[in-house]
């Protein structure tokens, strides 16, 4: 199996930056590759652990069935909300054309 020690390449970092919608500069990309690679080298300590039978832990305090009654509560004020938006028009949030989404 792939281990933490397998490290990270500049191509990986570029792909991750695209996924995260960060337009990193070439200089940043190079610097981050070195830094992330250094971290992963350090984090390789867990590769030696035998975790085959260990259950992942996702919730610190185990709760189940936390539910809310289906009752309407007051909404936020539209004007107040849209006033905080970078761009709004006609009661709605305005965004540039939606193209180039790789979805």
């Amino acid at each position, binding site marked *: *199996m792939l281990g933490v020690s397998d490290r990270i390449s500049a191509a990986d970092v570029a792909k991750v930056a695209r996924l995260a919608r960060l337009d990193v500069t070439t200089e940043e990309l190079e610097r981050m590759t070195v830094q992330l690679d250094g*971290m992963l080298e350090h*984090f390789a300590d867990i590769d030696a652990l035998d975790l085959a039978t260990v259950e992942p832990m996702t919730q610190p305090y185990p709760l189940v069935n936390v539910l809310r009654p289906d009752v309407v509560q007051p909404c936020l004020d539209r004007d107040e909300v849209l006033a905080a938006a970078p761009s709004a028009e006609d009661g709605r949030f305005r965004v540039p054309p939606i193209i180039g989404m790789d979805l």
Partner: protein
Amino acid sequence: MGLADIVASVKSGAVKAADLTEVRLAAIAAREGDIHAFNHVMADEARASAAAVDEAVARGDDPGPLAGVTVALKDNMCTRGVPTTCSSKILEGWLPPYDGTVVAALKASGAVAVGKTNLDEFAMGSSTENSAFGPTRNPHDTNRVPGGSSGGSAAAVAAGFSDFSLGSDTGGSIRQPAALCGVVGVKPTYGYVSRYGLVAFASSLDQIGPFTNTVEDAALVLDVIGGHDPRDSTSIPQQHPSLVAALQQGVGGLRIGRITDLPEGADPDVQERLEAAFDTLKAQGATIVDVQVPAFSFGLTAYYLIAPAEASSNLARYDGVRYGMRVEATDTNAMYGATREAGFGDEVKRRIMLGTYALSAGYYDAYYGKALKVRRLIHDDFERAYQHADVLLTPTSPSVAFEFGSKGDNPLAMYLCDTYTIPTNLAGHPGMSVPFGTGAHGLPVGVQVLAGTLQEPVMFRVAAALERSLA
């Protein structure tokens, strides 16, 4: 004066909340320029809140359990109509349209908020150097950091800018700055305090807690802000016993655990104070027991895979569409990339990238999935240790407050500041830092008291005993 004394004198009318607030605002005016604890000082709002408390007292109404007490709020807690930035350019100028649950609880309790405190951007850091609005300085030595990420909150209490403050702790962000600033800092059990309105860093690790001058003050604050919140699905449903009441008991008969396989790296001055703490507790009737927490040393790795993974998702909403900053571009996708590139600082970007990588196709099992299993090991090791010990004692921080820039630009050096605090967040357990004398350069040293799930009462008893021994 402790919080209980302040509240009593405000309630009796002997002291006016308005006057207490002016004293704090004056302290801020005098020293904030040197310290920079705040992103935003709420002078007008504070005066109005204080006046409301005094009017309630005059009317004979109950002004609340924290009447007239001043508080500083970490600037990652939503305050309606008051700027909430997380020390990030991406949220600069944002006015939340709602109050977080703890903020509402404090308002209802009669506390007077004096400002929003500085932090490492989105709570990512251990020195408050990562703030987009400049660092906070340690009141004990302004050439040194206050710790982080809640550095502004720790400094605000240490500098006398407020009677107490709130911070958030994801990997040590309350306890470590508390230690470096010489105040009490508590991270409660995960789910003890509502996260609703706390801007998320790593959802399964974040907890809100207080910075105070005394252990009793911390107990009083937690009694007010703790408890179930139906707006937070991870909030513990049952009622918490009063921590103030628990303080009356001593430590006689308690088992204090020493972790024999604790990762090395604490400076000798810090180690010396930890030994003194064991001695003090022993002298007060506690037993010292040796325990092992073998997975403790893997905490840092597990944390730096889990927390950035969650953060990469939590911080994806800063996209320039509904609030916050936008860099205009010809299409939405380009707008996202430009906005986020310009809006986030280096450390935040680094963690978003690391977290995105840890979750991405083909890497999940090797990174995130593996880290979740290590998290289980750490939790289980702690649980085993708590079968033999009521609390565990460790250093809070490996060193006293360090100088600005001293960690260089190697992120790992900074991450190591949280070696002793991180495993507790992964386990979901409570922990607190108590000032316990001074170390190198006469700077404060904190001792960390750790306990099992919802064992805050016993944790506070031990912390109070340490505090008493210094008096």
